[in-house]
Structure formats: structure tokens, C-alpha cells
């Protein structure tokens, strides 16, 4: 349940930004979380429910975009290979793939009022 710690961090950043922009309320927190991170969406939502009380995000909507794991092969020069089984070896040539997406963990934007 490190999602609690992660959500704590998200709310600290969000409240800091609201402060900076003189906003009294946070309407939306939009996150981008890569599939290849050890973060569970349900646990993150639960942590948000538990931690938002008493913050400027008390009424906010939490939007989580899950970014699928994608890689490219340096040898086949194939880009954007979807990886359903988490294997980072190219199916065609066996080369080590480079991850191009799926390791994100960021606040994309906030909607402030």
C-alpha cells in the first residue's frame, strides 16, 4: 500500500500549486501512470478517498490515465511495440528492447478554481 505515500505526495504537489496560483479549490487532478510501475489504480483511488478530506482537493475529481507499456527494437527499428507479457526481448530478433512508454508517474494537469 505505498499508494498512500504516493497519494500524499500528489496532494502536497497539488495543494502547493493551488497556493501558488491563488486557487481556493482543486476541481480536477489528472494523473498519467505507466503500466510498468508498481502502482495499483484501485489502491490509488482508495488512498485519494482517505486523504482528500480537509484539503483543497476535497471535492476534486481524480482522473487516472494508464499508459500502456511500449518499447522499440534497436535492431529491427520497429517502434511502439506493445508488450502484453512484459518481455523486453524482441520477438523477431531477440534484441533487448528499449522502453518508450509505460514508466510514467506524473501529474499531467490540475484544474484550479
Amino acid at each position, binding site marked *: 500500500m505505498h499508494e498512500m505515500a504516493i497519494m500524499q*505526495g500528489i496532494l502536497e504537489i497539488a495543494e502547493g500549486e493551488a497556493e501558488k496560483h491563488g486557487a481556493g479549490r482543486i476541481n480536477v487532478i489528472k494523473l498519467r501512470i505507466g503500466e510498468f510501475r508498481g502502482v495499483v489504480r484501485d489502491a490509488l483511488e482508495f488512498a485519494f478517498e482517505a486523504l482528500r478530506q480537509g484539503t483543497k482537493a476535497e471535492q476534486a475529481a481524480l482522473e487516472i490515465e494508464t499508459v500502456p507499456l511500449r518499447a522499440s527494437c534497436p535492431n529491427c527499428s520497429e517502434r511502439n511495440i506493445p508488450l502484453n507479457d*512484459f*518481455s523486453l526481448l524482441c520477438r523477431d530478433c531477440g534484441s533487448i528492447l528499449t522502453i518508450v512508454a509505460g514508466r510514467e508517474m506524473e501529474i499531467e494537469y490540475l484544474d484550479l478554481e
Partner: protein
Amino acid sequence: MHQVTLETGIMEANEQLASHNRELYDAQGISVINLMSAPGAGKTSVLEKTIQRMKDDYRLGVIEGDLMTTMDADRISALGVPAYQITTGTVCHLDARMVHNALHNFDIGGIELLFIENVGNLVCPAEFNLGEHLKIMVYSVVEGAEKPRKYPVMFHESAVVLLNKVDLLPYSGVSLEELQRNVLAVNPEAIIFPVSCRTGEGFDAWTEWLRGWIDARRSAITRAGNAASGN
């Protein structure tokens, strides 16, 4: 209503503290290893065996992370190696701040190789950088051959994977070959050592690799020191 685009890394605060920790280690020429595993995979036993084989040649130290008790730090202290216990209470991982606070209470001066034994957990510790130079994972073969594919992040993040309890392979029905294949699928560059704390199997190869790693870092640190002092 207005939108503020951030694209801020959620782990930014932890990353900053981790960099600060790294500066503290580097300033004192300390090499730091973050040791991770699920509970019961044998992190402390691996540490004990590794320490026994290396303590005459290197100045070692250990920071232990657990939810409760100082049992692990006591086991390490019994070997004559300085150990500091972090008890996290309910938190399932160590983060850079906890380690940073520990560094205020635990004198790491003079230590060449510091192990940080993380809280036993197969998921969460992989997400928190502690400023270490190397992540090492212990995985006991009896946990099954398929876990690297089911819990890929820690395997992916670890430069070295120690497959422990290989003495139990005949009783477990687990194929070491299949397990190694799965580790390499999620981390094609992983350095893998099958080991057994019970029989000592594999510890020659593992500690030889570790000595090579620390020696290479030691000469790099000396070179950097000489360059800085103009020698």
C-alpha cells in the same frame, strides 16, 4: 476555472532527497546497495553470509528496514558490523527521507560498503529511490518461476538478482531454468546468481562479483579524489 499543466513527476520530492543522499555517500566515498525482496526470501541471511565472507577485507555497514523490532539489526551487530534499524511502523517500504533521517543518527564515516536492507515487499520498495548505487534483489526459488512476469517492476529495477534457497529446488517443483528465463525477459541485463544460504552454494561466485564491483568503485573514487586534488 483554469487548467495548470504540470507534467511533474509524482516522485520528485523523493528523487530530490535521494540525490541528496547520493551526494552524502559520494562525499565520503561510500558505495551503497539497496537490497530488496519479498518477506522471507532471505535478505538478512544473504547479508549475514556475504558479510562473513567480506568483513575482513572491507569496512561494512548495514541499515535495516522493518515494520517492527530490531531483530535484523541485532543479527548484523552480532557479526561485529555496525547496524542501524529503521522501524517504519506500518509503511511497506523505505523512502529517501527515512534513510536521510537514519544518516543523521548512524555514523557512516569510514564505511566503504553500506547495505540498506529494505522492508520485505515484492512491489513497493522498487518505486522509491534511496540514492543507492546499486539495487540488488533476493528472490527465493520456492516463490515460483512465474513471479518475475507477475511482479516485473522490482526484477526490472535490480541490476543483480540472487536466486536464493536453490537447495530447496528438488522439493519445490520449480524449474531454475524457467525462472531465470522469466527474470531475463523482464530484465535482459540482470546478473543472476543462484545461491543457497543453507549450503553456501553460489556464494563464491556472488561475493567474487561483489568484490569486483566494490574494487572498481574504489578505484573510480580514488581517481576522482586525485583529479579533484590535482594529483
